[in-house]
């Protein structure tokens, strides 16, 4: 798939993100819009997967440790063909398959998450299991920057380095915002790339909205030993002007139909 086509798909993903959160009158658009290019790239170009066989044992795995970013996760899976896009309208509604936080009974979802700081440990377990079985599949994961305030992230970081898990590739969605505000105002995270390097990971920093950067980082990852941390500088709410860099839209959808139209127009004009 050409990179230009990926940008087109990312636009579709963003439209679904703002639409289904608007329809559900709840959900997390901000951190979904910041993660859109990375998750789109993984599912449409990088990962060895087959949407007709979501349980295929040799598939690459993906763990959405920031488990609230379901709007982007479910939208990407539906557009990739794991289930019908019609299902997306059921997001967060009663009796729906599509729970508010990511859950592994959804076709294409490998790991349940939602309580922050746990998915990275789950990913370590998957990567360790692959090694025990002499399997060559890779384990990708995405953690948030706010999520990195959880102590268990750093327990997982220690163990991944200790176990030398070269099959583990993690993106850190560094959008600088968490629920209550800007990360640096709430609790200083400092230089996360340096911190992970100090924990024994191979690290790099990219523009998380550039498919070219994502591609380059994943090529780089193939040349590195041990677990890889790709710190992706992103913009929370990317693509929707009134949501961009606005903590208010961490967990709040477009409030009115007019605002939804405005959001869709912004995305179209990206």
């Amino acid at each position, binding site marked *: 798939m050409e990179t230009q086509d990926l940008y087109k798909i990312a636009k579709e993903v963003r439209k679904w993100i703002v639409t289904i959160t608007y329809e559900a009158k709840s959900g997390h658009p901000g951190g979904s819009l910041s993660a859109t290019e990375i998750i789109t790239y993984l599912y449409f170009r990088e990962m060895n997967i087959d949407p007709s066989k979501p349980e295929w044992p040799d598939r690459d795995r993906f763990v959405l440790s920031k488990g609230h970013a379901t709007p982007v996760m479910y939208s990407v899976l539906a557009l990739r063909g794991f289930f019908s896009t019609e299902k997306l309208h059921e997001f967060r509604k009663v009796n729906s398959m599509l729970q508010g936080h990511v859950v592994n009974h959804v076709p294409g979802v490998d*790991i349940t998450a939602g309580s922050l700081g746990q*998915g990275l440990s789950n990913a370590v377990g998957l990567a360790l299991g692959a090694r025990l*079985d002499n399997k060559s599949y890779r384990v990708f994961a995405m953690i948030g920057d706010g999520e990195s305030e959880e102590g268990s992230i750093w327990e997982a970081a220690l163990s991944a380095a200790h176990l030398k898990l070269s099959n583990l590739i993690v993106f850190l969605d560094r959008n600088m915002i968490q629920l209550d505000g800007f990360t640096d105002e709430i609790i200083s995270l400092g230089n996360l790339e340096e911190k992970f390097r100090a924990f024994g990971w191979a690290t790099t920093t990219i523009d998380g909205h550039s498919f070219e950067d994502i591609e380059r980082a994943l090529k780089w990852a193939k040349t590195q030993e041990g677990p890889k941390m790709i710190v992706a500088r992103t913009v929370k709410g990317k693509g929707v002007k009134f949501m961009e860099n606005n903590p208010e839209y961490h967990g709040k959808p477009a409030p009115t139909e007019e605002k939804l139209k405005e959001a869709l127009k912004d995305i179209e004009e990206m």
Partner: protein
Amino acid sequence: MRNDGLTWLPDLANSLEKTSVREAYGNTLVSIGSDRRVVVLDADLSTSTHTVMFKNKYPDRFFNMGISENNMMGVASGLSWTGKKVFVSSFAVFAAGRAYDLVRQSICYADSDVRIVATHAGLTVGEDGATHQMLEDIGLMSGLPRMSVLSPADGMEVNQVIRYIYENRGPFYVRLSRERVPVIHHEETFKFGKAETIEDGDDVVIFATGILVAAAKIASSYLRSKGVSARVLNIATIKPIDRDAVIKAARDTGRIVTAEEHSVYNGLGSRVSEVVSETYPALVYRLGVNDVFGESGKSWELMDKYELNPMGIVKKVESIMEAKV
């Protein structure tokens, strides 16, 4: 002071034949270890939990995760989704307490095939004191959907329980003590979800679990000499509780005493009371730790101080026999 051999000290605890439940756990892990799906994790307590026995035999499938119980539970979950039969061990206070949210989300909600075998539950941790004496784990673990909670009474039962959870899909929580415990079984009797009749009787029924099964047996024989016929049931499966055994006890006698090395809140006594109150109302007196933390001391000293001994059970039985139903 009345004693009649009903306290663990000075003689009773020493006079009984005992087994190590932790050694039984280690031995059973080794016996199932030839199955390459079995993976064991520990958090820097492997010589205490005895998972080190598995490590020595199968070092490539043992992982010491360091003093990081949260990460250990999360890694266990991930491993389970690659088809591994995962055993996770630590002290009960860390496995069920510190790592509770990981157990809730990454294991139970995620429906992960993980077996938590926690040692050092209860007061018999001894000298380490309250920080390490877990008295709330039955409640914490029983409250989790999908979780089964097991509390075997002696080494032979541990062996059977560990083989049962190996053969079946998790999640499971198994509660073991640090202390060597009196032998109850000379043959294999464990059936998942079923109460086991240790002594028959028709005046009162004692539901006991873990180390208190031995106490109940001794109490029952004393009571018999005083003309009270006490049925003793060993409850190795606390969740799901054997509802039929509870209903039958209530119907047959109208008087139930529960005994456990756990808080009187949210443990075996609570499970039994829940069934009784909605099926066949009867008196239930609970013996356990009365909403306080433990303290340092020798195991059997503490068990006597908190009356988790045959005397404590006899007193509960005597008072429930005096109560008007």
